[in-house]
């Protein structure tokens, strides 16, 4: 499950209103949601982001509303993993349930700047800045969460379990 991509870096307390503004909550299609990702904090994000890119942020990423579109839009925009100093709990759950890997790494903002190339291995927590050579360690996700992520999210995970049971 190794990820490698270009970093988009943000500060502390990035809330779900700026990740996915309330005016778009009526949108249900992930591909359309991707067009509005990060619109109120970084207008160019949706245009610039490429498949596999990585979001790095400070503490309490995803605070505010429970809207899961905040996780859906990032995944649909191609973001491979979000690494932050800490997360708000509802966003954390939503990201896992939608199959968007997220990792807690208290040192991350110190070793990475926007535009750097980053390599991340969720199963070991190893984080490497390919641009500078610096490394850091993220908290390893518990096995049951890694399983949900490797299944692609809660829905495919449940589908698999139901199939097994029948």
């Amino acid at each position: 499950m190794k990820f490698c991509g270009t970093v988009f870096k943000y500060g502390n307390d990035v809330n779900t209103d700026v990740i996915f503004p309330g005016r778009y909550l009526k949108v249900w299609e992930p591909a359309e949601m991707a067009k509005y990702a990060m619109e109120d904090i970084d207008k160019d994000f949706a245009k610039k982001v490429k498949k596999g890119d990585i979001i790095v942020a400070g503490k309490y990423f995803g605070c505010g509303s429970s809207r899961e579109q905040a996780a859906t839009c990032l995944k649909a925009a191609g973001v491979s993993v979000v690494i932050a100093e800490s997360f708000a709990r509802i966003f954390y759950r939503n990201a896992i349930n939608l199959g968007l890997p997220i990792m807690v790494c208290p040192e991350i903002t110190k070793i990475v700047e926007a535009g750097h190339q980053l390599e991340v291995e969720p199963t070991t927590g190893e984080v490497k800045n390919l641009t500078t050579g610096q490394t850091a360690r993220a908290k390893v996700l518990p096995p049951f969460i890694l399983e949900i992520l490797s299944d692609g999210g809660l829905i495919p995970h449940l589908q698999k379990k139901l199939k097994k049971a029948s």
Partner: protein
Amino acid sequence: MGKTMAEKILARAAGVKEASPGDLLDVFPHVAMSHENAGLVIKSFKEIGTGKLYDPDRIVIIFDHRVPAESEKTAEGHKTVREFVKKYGIKHFFDINTGICHQVLPEKGFCRPGEVLVGTDSHTTTHGAFGVFSTGIGATEMAAVWATGKLWLMVPETIKIVVKGKFAPGVYAKDLILYIIGRLRADGADYKAIEFFGPAIDEMSIASRMVLTNLSMEAGAKAAMIPPDQKTIEYVKSVTDRPFEAIRPDPDARYCQTLEIDLGTLTPQIAYPHAVDNVKPLAELAGTPIHQALLGSCTNGRLEDLEEGAKQLRGRRVHPDVRMLVIPASWQVYRQALDKGLIAAYIDAGAVVLNPGCGPCLGAHQGLLAAGERCISSTNRNFQGRMGSTQAEVFLASPAAVVASAVAGRITLPEVK
């Protein structure tokens, strides 16, 4: 060792003998609430593919975010949900003429002490005012609850907040909780529960208690609870015949942090742009010109809020440079406000009264702000772009401060006479 409310309530809902912070439990919620995002829940539920609801009677759906529909897209969403509700026999469905989910849930008897309630809305913490462990989740997770009846929850640590003393005139529960958020900061209670204690909480009305638990979300709380007392039991019995078991914390329960607050020194507070933990005494911002004043929301749209606001009017009109919007939190509140002459008082003052719902609080419906405009609001969030333009500013304060400011045309302390 004694147990907190979160530990006791979650253990019971998971069918285990006892639970401690950090335990991962499979919890079976008693109530599973969604609003317009029931549309997303339905989409995910269909993908899971069981085709069967675990228990339709635990599901509650209340339209409130965009009522009546402001666009064709919303109308289509509403229609999808109405059709699903009929097809699957979900009887607890409340359409566009009911009110905000966090006001309607208690009014209709869904907040029963000792139970677990999950909702696809972050301010689901509100229902802890009734001794419910109540928390927000996402739509996909709700679909799993609909299909399997359960979800995993980590048992949280709990912060104890003890409130003593009496409110000075012009100071309210809203000022208290804004002050607490300023102290704890936006993530001070992330992953944690809060329990409120003290003589000031005992004296507080049910409506004021709901202000505390509602806004605890803005300190990151997973749940925020007030141990049920006689007032709670009487209210709940007045709205439901369902039996319930009130659960209180043990006297020797273990808390991760204790905060003591004396109301004696508390003054009106305000949260300034663009974070709810940007809190300072309102007096420091007095005189700042405003363009809109919003009275309503799941935080402060109840009858006592409309009453306290109306007292500030004193027969005066809203300032000509200000648009004032009033949104009763529910149709029940709307009806009571009509009977008490409050709606007439606001209309005569030049305010616009809107249909009970979330309205402009989250920038999804009517009453938005243009670039450069400022709004003083009794709502719960002031994030950038929350109420329209990213160049607009939202200030959060009590209903009395909102109405006093609407009349003055600038941020103003509530008048006390």
